[in-house]
């Protein structure tokens, strides 16, 4: 419990510090101006979301291999946290896009594949509500989760493979790309903060899933008495 409180406190402090850095330390971008400061929150949250989906993917693979319910708990926990991250990305993206592009949304490769990613993980969570038997639910959702993860590299590489309305990559984008050194430091600090927040939320959600399993077990015990 104490470790969880410390993790939560560290995550919140880092997120506040990252917001301060985004507003007061990062220099203003020349063409977009103030609105570009959304980048530090939007892109860092996207990276954290993709990382949590990777954790979900690993947990799903491990569940299929070992059939240990703890991997199922980790899978659903990280899927929910990843979904929260991608929801934030899908909200902050249009808020940034509207003043810059003049439109809220366009069906380009990056935006569409991100929306599909959101739909896939909503389906993952819905699927779990449709199956009552715990082992069958865990296996089916693990298999679906492995399939859903295919979209994550597609989202990541979409701006590298196709010309999109979404800007080309500024991190790991090859020659001609890159960020001002201060912007880069603020961005990677924001990435760290959002990863800590995601880790904290996964831990909290995992505790909930573990407790749910205990309740199910005890309910069966009571029923059997």
């Amino acid at each position, binding site marked *: 419990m104490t470790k969880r409180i410390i993790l939560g406190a560290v995550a919140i402090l880092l997120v506040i510090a990252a917001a301060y850095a985004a507003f007061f330390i990062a220099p203003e971008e020349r063409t977009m101006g103030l609105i570009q400061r*959304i980048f530090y929150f*939007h892109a860092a949250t996207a990276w954290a979301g993709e990382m949590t989906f990777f954790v979900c993917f690993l947990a799903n693979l491990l569940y299929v291999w070992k059939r240990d319910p703890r991997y199922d708990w980790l899978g659903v926990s990280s899927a929910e946290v990843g979904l929260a991250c991608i929801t934030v990305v899908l*909200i902050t993206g249009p808020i940034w896009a509207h003043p810059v592009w003049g439109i809220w949304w366009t069906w380009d490769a990056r935006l569409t594949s991100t929306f599909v990613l959101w739909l896939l993980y909503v389906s993952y969570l819905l699927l779990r509500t449709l199956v009552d038997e715990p082992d069958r639910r865990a296996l089916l959702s693990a298999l679906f989760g492995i399939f859903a993860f295919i979209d994550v590299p597609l989202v990541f590489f979409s701006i590298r493979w196709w010309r999109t309305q979404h800007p080309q990559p500024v991190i790991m984008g090859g020659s001609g790309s890159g960020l001002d050194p201060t912007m880069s430091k603020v961005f990677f600090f924001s990435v760290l903060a959002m990863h800590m927040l995601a880790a904290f939320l996964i831990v909290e959600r995992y505790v*909930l899933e573990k*407790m*749910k399993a205990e*309740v199910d077990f*005890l*309910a069966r015990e009571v029923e059997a008495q």
Partner: protein
Amino acid sequence: MKNLDSVFAAYIVGWGVFFVFYLTIAKRTSNLRTELERLKNSLPRTK
């Protein structure tokens, strides 16, 4: 200070989503803790 309202909106709504998500986890955990206590208490009585 052009677009300051949009920048604030993005940060506030974004943090709001995480905050509401955390609240749902806390609420579900609290409900389960109550249920767990109820089940633990009912076990010895049925024995």
